[in-house]
């Protein structure tokens, strides 16, 4: 706050100060409920998990301080080390697929045509299914003894694939499942981004004779950058924390080929009953996620402003000149 040197009357400053204090108090009171919830449901558990990771923490009984043993053990945990590569591979594959399919669906249903509402709804509906339920549903579909997929392949004379029997098939089957589950959700996000692009821009481009591909490359994608950034953050975070699809569909099999990082964390806690090690893995995951997302946001912020400057370059120059 700027302080006035012109010695105002005491009472005024007192009154102003009292008002400021009242406002500050009111502000804190408004924020209090959320703050309490964040402290109790987020900060306290986070602190507890960090404290756990510094201890040998049995299921029942007294924990013993043993830092940094739990962190050192991560380097010896072959299952976790193998799962890092697999989780990153899964993350890259799902991110690309979600973006391409989500964008394709969004472009398909963006214009108001008769019946478009039906398709928007149909594409979005899978998102209403819980991830574990969807995994279980597909587990039944992929079972060749009971599920319909084997019969359908057979009906068309195709060889019936062993959906979950080999590492590659199990991976592909899981990717198909999560794509079905998430594509519509990403479509909706991209759709809102698409609808925010002003129509004049497209009209100008068409007047300049740009074709569909050029419009997509040079107008739609650059203006969708913030939306794409949002989807990237959501997808990458979600995929690095992938658990349910693989836990339900493949249980990490066949032969540990589809074990994700969270599955190894879960196993440390609830199969090996070593809560300290699990907490240490959780902390490593947390730091990695924060780093990855900070990097993403930084990249996008730079590129985003650069993109806007390129696009609005002339207008920005004009306004600067006007200012002068």
């Amino acid at each position, binding site marked *: 706050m700027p302080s006035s040197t012109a010695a105002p009357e005491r009472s005024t400053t007192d009154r102003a100060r009292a008002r400021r204090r009242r406002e500050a108090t009111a502000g804190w009171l408004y924020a209090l409920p959320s703050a*309490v919830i964040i402290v109790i449901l987020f900060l306290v558990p986070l602190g507890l998990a960090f404290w756990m990771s510094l201890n040998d923490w049995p*299921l029942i009984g007294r924990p013993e301080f043993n830092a940094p043993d739990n962190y050192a053990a991560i380097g010896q945990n072959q*299952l976790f080390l193998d799962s890092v590569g697999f989780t990153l591979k899964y993350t890259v594959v799902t991110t690309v697929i979600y973006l391409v399919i989500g964008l394709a669906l969004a472009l398909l249903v963006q214009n108001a045509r008769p019946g478009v509402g039906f398709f928007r709804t149909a594409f979005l509906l899978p998102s209403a299914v819980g991830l574990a339920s969807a995994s279980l549903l597909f587990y039944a579909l992929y079972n060749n003894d009971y599920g319909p997929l084997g019969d359908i392949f057979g009906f068309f004379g195709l060889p019936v694939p062993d959906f979950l029997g080999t590492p590659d098939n199990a991976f592909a089957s899981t990717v198909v499942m999560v794509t079905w589950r998430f594509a519509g959700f990403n479509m909706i996000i991209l759709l809102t981004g698409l609808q925010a692009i002003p129509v004049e821009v497209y009209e100008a481009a068409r007047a300049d004779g740009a074709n569909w591909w050029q419009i997509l490359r040079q107008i739609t994608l650059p203006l969708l950058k913030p939306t794409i950034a949002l989807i990237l953050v959501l997808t990458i975070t979600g995929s690095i924390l992938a658990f349910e699809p693989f836990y339900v569909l493949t249980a990490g099999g066949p032969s540990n080929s589809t074990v994700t990082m969270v*599955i190894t964390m879960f*196993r440390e806690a609830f*199969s090996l009953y070593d809560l300290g090690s699990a907490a240490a893995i959780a902390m490593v995951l947390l730091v990695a996620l924060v780093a990855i997302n900070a990097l993403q946001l930084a990249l996008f912020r730079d590129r985003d402003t650069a993109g806007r400057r390129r696009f609005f370059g002339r207008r920005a120059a004009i306004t600067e000149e006007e200012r002068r």
Partner: protein
Amino acid sequence: MASTYRSPRRAVAWGGALAASALLLTACGASTPEEGADGEPATVTMWARASTASQSQLLVDAFNAEHETQIDLTVVPTDNYLQKVGVAAGADELPCVLASDVVYMPNFVRQNLFLDVTDRVEALEFADALVPGHMDLGTEDGVIYSVPHTIGMSAIFQNDVLLERAGIDPSAELGSLRELADNAAAVAALGPEFSGLYYTGNNAGSISFTHFPAIWASGGEALSEDGTESLLSSDESVEVFEIFNEMFVSGATPDSVRNESGATRNDVFATGNVGYVLASNSVLEAVAENEALTIGVQGIPGVDGGVSTYVGGDVVGISSSCDTPDAAWEFLEWTLGEEAQVDVFAQNNILSVRTDLADNEFSAEDPRVVRLGELLADGRTPKALNYGQTFNDPNGPALTAFREALFGSDARAALEASDDAINSSLAN
């Protein structure tokens, strides 16, 4: 945050608000005691795993029908039992009566999940007649924590109808694992829809259950005496896996075995298109005979002869979270009594957990049950602290090793390569 309030009164208000919210949140999680009000019969909670729950259910129903105390049974999916028990134990929310796969018992005892029942067990007249393998795994340093609950033993079940079509005498005892392989090949040669030998090939808990006996019958060992070291790369063990590997390569064992996690094993045998299946005694309860299927029982032979079986199944104890141990013991004691073992178990073709009741009015009627009872005498239960995380856990080191040995190109190399991983899992 603390810098935002300047007067002590406000700090108190803050603290009060925080404390109130904390109280509200924790009040929802408080558990209610299990005892009913005065005069009400106690309700005792119990968990059992899905694969043996049908037997637990029979006991619970019979007990509830004639007692004041009521047992409330919850069935937990077999594959998640370890995790669910772990979560509940961490929150001190275990059920009063906890049944457990017998192989988890040394670990559960180490985790202090069970109450000491030594005096209660020793007061039983038939304490010496309880299945020794189960008692061994539920005992630590002379303290008893559990009693036997259900028997799951491994054996070979055969389809006599198919064997006769393949020119094999179903009443002849299998002399060796090699003979089993020859017979399975003969059955598989009957036609493309027929399989010689079927078993669970995608579940290391099941593979140890059905394949360890062949190692024992060959005079070998799968684990060291104290359960901290794997002997799976020993010659006897490698020979056993090599014979199974040959059966897979030659087609005597169908390709689908590689994906069988156990859920559909009995259903596949029930089709009548399978000559032999390596399975547990639950086949006799679960699979109905028809004109294409007559079920016979064989012991699991060694490479050149001998016979053995893995005595698995469930033990049951009183959990450390239990407020009503007396009511829980009332149920446990009743399940071991003659009424439960004979009128409930034996009458339903279920093996008794008491050696003194193995011969009873019902078991004598079915020669297959008699045969299982004979095999039980040669049975064994391996004891290892980390058995669950090594063999039963789908992400444990054993499954990859077993699958490579059974379905890969070189059983010996696969078992030798996995020694370190299995040993470190057993020892840590």
